């Protein structure tokens, strides 16, 4: 039971981090109808900047720089590629983002090489005991930060002019343009916000108990794709639910790996994709989605 509770807390925490990534993925899809396969490389870029800068300027400044860098890379991809190609079909643009992902990831993994880069976070490997349950401090911080960011984002999405412009554009881009909404701004804002959220997620994917940022971090980020897709590509609620489902499934399967030996080693890495496939078989548009991925 204790193990289960520990796994559950860890699962919810990592799920909240996946939700951050999935949320970015969903807002890009809503604002531009493009499935952004370059999302993992935005995350890697943010994490890389934090890892490189923290020894010289300190952790918090490096984190701010990493968030800003990932936001800037996102905005740049939008400005240089997505916007220019906006007569191309969304399917073509999705493939273009695969190209962007390959270029960015190749360059970053070349720079990282075989190193494992520490991010210099202040929580290190401290463990908190809540009764019989012991949890890494990083997991609790991840949960708190992700929850706060998600709440802030959802409030902004509901109540600010930016949020209204974003939802209006997502629902009917032409009608929104007739209201004077600048589509380029909305879309660039979406990419920048998604990049910033991904950089925060990068931090929490690389802190204890993970050894640090390495070339495998992009793969860890990929697990947020099934989160976004099973939640529904165009649903923010879906991103949250999907992130939690994936995080908890992965952690439980990994935690009980020995009891599930018949599934083979590494079942924890595969489980998110299995869950996604099962959900899509039952609900092709995802748990909360209204648009089927085929629409892409």
């Amino acid at each position, binding site marked *: 039971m204790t193990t289960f509770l520990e796994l559950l807390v860890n699962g919810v925490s990592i799920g909240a981090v996946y939700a951050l990534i999935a949320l970015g993925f969903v807002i890009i899809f809503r604002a531009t109808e493009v499935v952004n396969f370059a999302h993992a490389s935005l995350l890697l870029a943010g994490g890389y900047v934090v890892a490189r800068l923290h020894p010289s300027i300190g952790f918090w400044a490096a984190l701010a720089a990493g968030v800003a860098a990932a936001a800037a890379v996102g905005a740049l991809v939008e400005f240089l590629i997505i*916007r*220019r190609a*906006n*007569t191309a079909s969304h399917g073509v643009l999705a493939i273009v983002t695969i190209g962007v992902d390959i270029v960015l990831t190749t360059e970053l993994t070349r720079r990282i090489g075989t190193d494992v880069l520490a991010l210099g976070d202040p929580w290190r490997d401290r463990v908190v005991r809540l009764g019989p349950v012991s949890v890494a401090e990083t997991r609790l911080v991840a949960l708190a930060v992700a929850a706060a960011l998600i709440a802030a984002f959802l409030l902004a999405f509901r109540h600010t*002019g930016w949020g*209204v*412009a974003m*939802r*209006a554009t997502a*629902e*009917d*881009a*032409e*009608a*929104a*343009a*007739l*209201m*004077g*909404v*600048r589509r*380029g701004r909305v879309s660039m804002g979406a990419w920048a916000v998604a990049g910033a959220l991904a950089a925060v997620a990068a931090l929490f994917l690389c802190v204890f108990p993970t050894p640090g940022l390495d070339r495998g971090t992009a793969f860890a980020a990929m697990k947020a794709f099934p989160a976004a897709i099973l939640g529904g590509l165009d649903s923010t609620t879906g991103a949250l639910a999907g992130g939690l489902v994936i995080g908890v499934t992965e952690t439980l399967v990994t935690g009980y790996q020995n009891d599930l030996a018949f599934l083979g080693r590494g079942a924890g890495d595969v489980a998110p994709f299995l869950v996604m496939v099962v959900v899509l078989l039952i609900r092709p548009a995802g748990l909360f989605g209204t648009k089927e991925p085929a629409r892409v």
Partner: protein
Amino acid sequence: MEARRQEARTDAHDSPPPAEPRDPPEPARPAGPVRTAEAAEAAEAGLVVRDLAAGYGPVTALRGVSLEVPRGSVVAVLGGNGAGKSTLLRAVSGTLRFHRGGIAAGEVSFGGRRLSGADPSAVVACGVVQVPEGRRIFARMTVAENLRAGALGARGARGRRAAAEARDRVLTLFPVLAERARQRAGLLSGGEQQMLAIGRALMARPVMLLLDEPTLGLAPMAAARIADTVREINAQGTTVLLVEQNAAMALSLARHAYVLEVGEVALSGPAAELAASDEVRRRYLGIGDDPAAPAGGAPATRPALARWPG
């Protein structure tokens, strides 16, 4: 980016006949007394469309269309399905590129300012706001959020007070929108959705309103209500360009009217004259063929006129 590309294309088509002498490119000449007088005249002019050609890739939808909407007036554009009415409004609002179309030649200006080639947001900022065909309200958002969206591109100071004033005006005009403020817009009836679409456009505090078939699909009562509203909006000082298939309604509202046929202006003139003309009565009001119809009795029979069958 798109806008620039479109403009470049426009210019390329424009270049053979260089800009007409009475319409010099905006910043070319130093401001002098002559220029000032011209500018004042242009500002009075309202919307001016000159020799407009537009289409969608290989499809040409408008050819050599010229029309004027003087400040403060209501002008109607009539025509059947596919005549090019919506294309005309898209060309004014700069939204042709959403349909993979563009302006091939000609010019659109409002108050002397060139709109052709401009971004839709720049057109809204000039005070020209369109209510698109089929209402196109944001069905998944609440009524209040739809109105808020309408104010996003408003001209000048986007202050809270200006937005609140605009909202008061809209809610006075359409009290039902206040009752339904928190409801999802998709749940409104067709007539209410049209009111919301018009109200949303009014939130941008337009100088000129472009209405694309506002009575489409509405019962006669609801259509009459929209007609009254258009009259009221105009009385409050907003210029209106009204696109309609419902010729009877449009001609009763407008001062001047144009008839589009396969992308060209086939007829134009004062609304009363058009309403009385045999051709319009036969083809657009569906009554000319009736030998029993009293000749020249258009004004009297107008309320009973049928919708143009399309």
